[in-house]
């Protein structure tokens, strides 16, 4: 085995040094009836065979590079500078463990600190953690934080929040005494303020909105935080970090917690993961934040030092009284996002957001001109919007497949009322000719 240095010669020497005559002597404590293991696992392949085989298996996937894709819905196709992979490919980053030994992990710790700083900056909040598993689990943890903080039992969530996130939220709360209640949206996709208000009660710990929401609409949230805060409840916002280059921040909306999927920040879509859950909050809630935090302090010589901090929140110190059970997070994805954001910088973050708006509004306009398709032109969007077709999408599918186009995500599986409606996404990766081709193919369907 080319990963294992132990040779047969070594084995004999080592057994001798250990003081047993056979390897089996080391396993005496294992009940013998357990020892008769038969595993049906294929025999080893050489690396060349692996390279060939996995290329072959990979060829059975269609990709965003060989198709023209308009898929969003929580995972986005964005430009990633080549420098990102050179940074995350540094072995000292990707083969290190959690930076518990601060002196031997200043690299990782400083990068986490920078990541936290940029996420706090994007969200306009005071603190961000070192990452959570993904957008959905961040959202569930935010709900738990609100429930604990307010000592209440109910979470309100907009139906326009990503359906998968709402499912995860329900899973997380299923075994607890807490409940979830949803409020609806208007035809254009923005949340229905009356329905929201109606459900607001003094048992509500917090309310969750997403903006831009799953239907592509940017929510107008004026007054929402006041309404909630007056009731003693928290405002939780799910965001798209790329959009925050230009859109109003959770901080500006008066949110207490912001969560979101960090994948758009330089992480390839890779069929759903690994991604990185973003989690930011106010200084007031800092000591309830789940997961790791890096901070700045001084070392014994008074020199600046980075270290994990407020560990009293965490499971390895507090065990059953911890703020969360999280241990391993998505550190390398956070580093990826950190490298991406640093490369984009202040101007780049604004510009990429602007480009998303440009592409999405352009495409929406063009589709609006087509017969047989409907879009709501008056809803503010970022890079996604709903397209309703007069015919079932299934009928259009073969044409689109032939043109190697993934047109979008069908919404009726999540919202039965949204028949023949696709969620269509266009990011900065799309050129005029690609968008025009899509429109052309649609017009010929």
């Amino acid at each position, binding site marked *: 085995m080319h990963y294992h240095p132990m040779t047969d010669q070594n084995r004999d020497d080592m057994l001798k040094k250990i003081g047993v005559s056979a390897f089996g002597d080391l396993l005496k404590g*294992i009940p013998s009836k*357990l020892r008769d293991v038969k595993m049906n696992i*294929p025999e080893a392949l050489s690396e060349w065979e692996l390279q060939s085989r996995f290329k072959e298996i990979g060829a059975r996937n269609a990709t965003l590079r060989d198709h023209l894709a308009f898929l969003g819905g929580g*995972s986005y196709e964005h430009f990633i500078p080549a420098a990102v992979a050179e940074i995350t490919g540094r072995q000292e980053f990707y083969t290190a*463990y959690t930076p518990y030994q601060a002196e031997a992990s200043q690299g990782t710790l400083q990068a986490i600190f920078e990541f936290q700083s940029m996420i706090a900056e994007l969200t306009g909040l005071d603190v961000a953690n070192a990452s959570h598993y993904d957008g959905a689990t961040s959202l569930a943890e935010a709900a738990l934080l609100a429930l604990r903080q307010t000592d209440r039992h109910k979470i309100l969530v907009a139906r326009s929040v990503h359906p998968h996130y709402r499912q995860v939220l329900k899973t997380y709360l299923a075994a607890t005494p807490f409940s979830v209640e949803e409020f609806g949206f208007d035809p254009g996709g923005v949340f229905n303020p009356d329905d929201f208000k109606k459900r607001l009660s003094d048992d509500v710990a917090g309310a969750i909105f997403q903006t831009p929401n799953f239907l592509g609409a940017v929510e107008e949230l004026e007054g929402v935080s006041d309404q909630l805060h007056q009731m003693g409840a928290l405002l939780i916002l799910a965001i798209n970090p790329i959009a925050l280059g230009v859109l109003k921040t959770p901080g500006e909306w008066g949110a207490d917690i912001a969560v979101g999927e960090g994948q758009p920040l330089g992480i390839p879509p890779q069929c759903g993961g690994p991604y990185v859950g973003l989690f930011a909050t106010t200084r007031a809630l800092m000591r309830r934040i789940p997961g790791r935090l890096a901070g700045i302090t001084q070392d014994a010589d008074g020199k600046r030092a980075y270290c994990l901090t407020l560990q009293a929140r965490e499971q390895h110190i507090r065990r059953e009284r911890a703020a969360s059970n999280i*241990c391993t997070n998505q550190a390398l994805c956070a580093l990826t996002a950190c490298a991406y954001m640093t490369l984009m910088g202040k*101007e780049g973050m604004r510009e990429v957001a602007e480009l998303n*708006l440009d592409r999405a509004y352009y495409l929406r306009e063009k589709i609006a001109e087509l017969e047989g398709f409907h879009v709501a032109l008056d809803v503010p969007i970022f890079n996604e919007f709903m397209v309703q077709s007069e015919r079932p999408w299934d009928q259009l599918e073969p044409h689109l497949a032939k043109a190697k186009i993934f047109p979008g995500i069908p919404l009726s599986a999540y919202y039965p009322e949204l028949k023949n409606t696709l969620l269509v996404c266009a990011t900065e990766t799309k050129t005029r000719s690609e968008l025009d081709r899509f429109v052309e193919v649609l017009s010929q369907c």
Partner: protein
Amino acid sequence: MLISKDDRLSFEKSKPGRRGARLPKQRLLESNALDLVPPSLKRKQPLLFPELTEPEVVRHFVNLSKKNFSIDTHFYPLGSCSMKYNPKINEWVAKLEQFAWTHPMQKDETLQGTLEILYELEQCLKEVTGMDRFTLQPAAGAHGELTGMMMVHAYHASRGEQKRRKVLVPDSSHGTNPATAALVGYEVVEIKSNPRGRVDLEDLKRHCHDETACLMLTNPNTLGLFEEQILEITKLIHGCGALLYYDGANMNALLGICRPGDMGFDIVHLNLHKTFSTPHGGGGPGAGPVGVKAKLIPFLPSMHIEKKGNHYEVVRDGQKSIGRVSAFLGNVGILIRAYVYIRTLGLSGLKQVSEDAIMNANYLKEKLKRIFPVAVDEPCMHEFVLTLQKLKTKGIHSGDVGKRLLDYGFHAPTVHFPLVVDEALMIEPTETESHETLDQFADAFRKIAQEIEEDPDLILKAPHTLPIRRPDEVRAARNPILTYRDLAGKDSPETASVR
């Protein structure tokens, strides 16, 4: 000077007007897209982001990386973490465009390659553990535990046994075990260890009753010891109607040697970022697939990959499922790496993993126990725990020895854990380290033991060779500086000017 002394943040290196990336110039709309956004929806706060060129950014991060210890540069015998070599072919495969550039909302027909891998990985994990079905969704060990505990709850609820509110965890257990049980609303009951470091069967018996929901057990446990009475334990727990949860963090000891399924466990999580060699990434991402016995299959998270003929399909599971535990299919990129690892090693390679891991641990234990006592001096599995109790009189703790090891070019073992061992050093060499490295490590211990005699201050003030000395953690927690704004002061001229 090879390691940069510069400890400035990217923000502090920033200069107005610099950029690190160029974006397309082409605009498709006649008007500026920003004008389409209603002013009330626009960000007002300027973005305090660093402004650096690509060369500056690259140098910044490359130099940061050089301040880390890592498997590829150092021996990293962190107990309970299986810091084994992360094979490069795993990275190569996972990064192929055909896998990396697929969207989770694509139709199954367009993802047959990825689905095949996930399906086959599940089959392998079933074989390795003796379980009947796996979910691949959980993103890490603790996430797997959470998934498991939610299933425990759903299972008992489905049988009308809501009164089972207690989860038993040994006092040697990992912090995530009690934390997870609590997260799901369970009451945590700690079970004592016996003098040989195993579960105290008498204590366990006392806590076995009709309010017991589950026992969470790590085997080999965090002392690196196999629970010899495992069959009695599982019988006992099942006898009282509770379930058995296996924390598979230490599965690196047991590949092909024995299986949690055969021991009687109902639910198992694996840490693919430990046993199956996927990189730790400075703290993640990992993957924590959860396997169950048949009776728990209905409760698994939704979404399961099935093979129909030559076609792979994502099947959404039924009524009793606890639902989704993550947004999409899980940490697919990590799952791919683990599968490549299994195919690289094959059946006999997997067996060799555990055999060599156990050999290395016992070999190193023999060497080190001449220097410091082993917590339980018996043959160990893949790791073992020293106790440095006797140094306490000198004011030296196990953490101090860990720090001094850094100066010798070795990452510290896990320190002060498990909690049942006073002044613990938990050492897991893994199978990918050579006996020469173990010998060098033992030499360093020997020298440190001598230093403790001759110059204890050297140990107490260690490390001496790294970019920083020990950080003041109390200060960090008392006055938390968690962002650049905290550091610069919200309204300091510095942040103002960068705005």
